[in-house]
């Protein structure tokens, strides 16, 4: 498997990353090296093997559906670089 510059640009769009023409070549080479390494997975036949998403095959632990926490709005909003007393502020979305 290998990836070309066009596909790499599409992946960058999906990942919301800005890949410049300058970095594209080195990133392309480096991604292709990793993909060559990953292709080692093709050495084994995995048909019939159940995928393992997680080391704990236990059931999800659920809490009782009761309110245990308080509102932390005033602790959390100041972490943003742009917020007023109640909202996160972002650049204008609708003209």
């Amino acid at each position, binding site marked *: *498997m290998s*990836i070309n510059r066009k*596909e*790499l640009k599409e*992946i*960058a769009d*999906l*990942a*919301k*990353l*800005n890949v410049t023409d300058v970095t594209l070549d080195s*990133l392309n080479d*480096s*991604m292709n*090296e*990793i993909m*060559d*390494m*990953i*292709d*080692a*997975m093709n*050495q*084994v036949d*995995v048909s019939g*093997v*159940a*995928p*393992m*998403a*997680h*080391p*704990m095959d*236990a059931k*999800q*632990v*659920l*809490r009782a559906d009761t309110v245990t926490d308080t509102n*932390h709005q005033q*602790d*959390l909003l100041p*972490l*943003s*670089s*742009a917020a007023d007393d109640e909202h*996160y502020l*972002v*650049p*204008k*979305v609708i003209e």
Partner: protein
Amino acid sequence: MIQSSIRAMADMLRSKQISVAELCSIYFDRAQAFNEQTGALLSINDDISPQELIQAEQALSNDSHLLAGVPLAHKDLFCTQGVTTTCGSNMLANFVPPYDATVVAQLKNQGMITVAKANMDEFAMGSSNEHSAFGPVKNPWDLSRVPGGSSGGSAAAVAARMVPVATATDTGGSIRQPAAFCGITGVKPSYGRVSRYGMVAFASSLDQGGVMASSADDCGLVLSAMTGHDAMDSTSHPDAAWQWQAPQGDELKGMKVGIISDWIDGLQDEAIKNSTLEAIETLKTQGAELVEVDLPHAHLAVAAYYVIAPAECSSNLSRFDGVRYGHRSASAVDLEQMYINSRSEGFGEEVQKRIMLGTWALSSGYYDAYYLKAQKIRRLISQDFQKAFQQVDVIAAPVSPEVAFKLGEKSDGVSMYQADVFTIPASLAGLPCLSMPIAPAHGLPVGLQLIGRYFGEQDILGLAHQFQQATQWHQAMPEAYL
């Protein structure tokens, strides 16, 4: 003092040979003195509050709080209330969490005192600690060499005794490899043993918090205090609580220790091979019964890991959009561009590469061929371990095929990834594992890895403790820091 065990420190504090403030100031002074040359710490807490000291002094009267008054550093991805938590990234350079990670709160409740936050590879991605946005960490044994990563700051800080103990995290080897490179003991517990609440996520099905210290006994004592079920982490195991019992005498006689000959025979570095064989021989002399085991799919672990970990990373790191916290670009005029610029400016090159790789592996058309396949290989590796542990109690293996390499020596990412070949299998299976110092090679530290059954922390730490009763390697320190 700096070569004292935690138990010895606890005795000295209780018999009033030293006060908590005096003990902390010894380490605080060392942290200040050695940080410029090692780069191990990102922030040093020079303002331990009187309240914290009083709390620690009070905890001393509680016999169950053996750790009271003992200073420590937290890897800078554990959220510390009111203290900057950068994760080694420009993305979080100014992030001051409004809460403590569960691990931080647990150790605080024991009366431990946080004197510093430790440097790390950005978002815990790296094996050399060269990928920190705040500069590399240098290995106290040789400042021209890397300390390993991603918990390189924690490892270097303990190796130079800037702190007696540090928290760390391990996703594919980030505790064991730096512990090996820096000549200290580092343990990664079973997945689910230690809460991940407040630990900045890299790959959620692999990340696990652990401990670095000079000995297995110190690691056991601190790890015990970090375990327990946490309702705030849905992957915390209901029976996670655990208490370390240092084995007395030779009760480990007859313990079956698995050896994977292919791994040891395959070591290219003869000095590391000899050191590994000598350590295994010591275990045998101490009464361990050596049994040959096989992990037939382990050679595929690195390939599977570099699909699974980046996939989880790309998903976890999508939360950094510049809106709620973290870096926000000043240059964007619209929302889309704000996301893109904030992420591109905030994340370093290695992190961006892994996000791209993960986004690709999860994208339509590749999900089955890569992500699902990697998960199936993960199952095969886990089954290999289950079979092996029907025959043995612990597996002894190398940690790394190399000693600490020179800063800048590995510009090619893939060769660094492949060096994690011995640590990744246990991570994929979620098993407890550690690295302990054995005879050095080329004048540099070497580690031996011990891997246990799920929840077998007592077995691996017990065996390491017994080894450390018969050997001195764990007491060795770089001369410049004595």
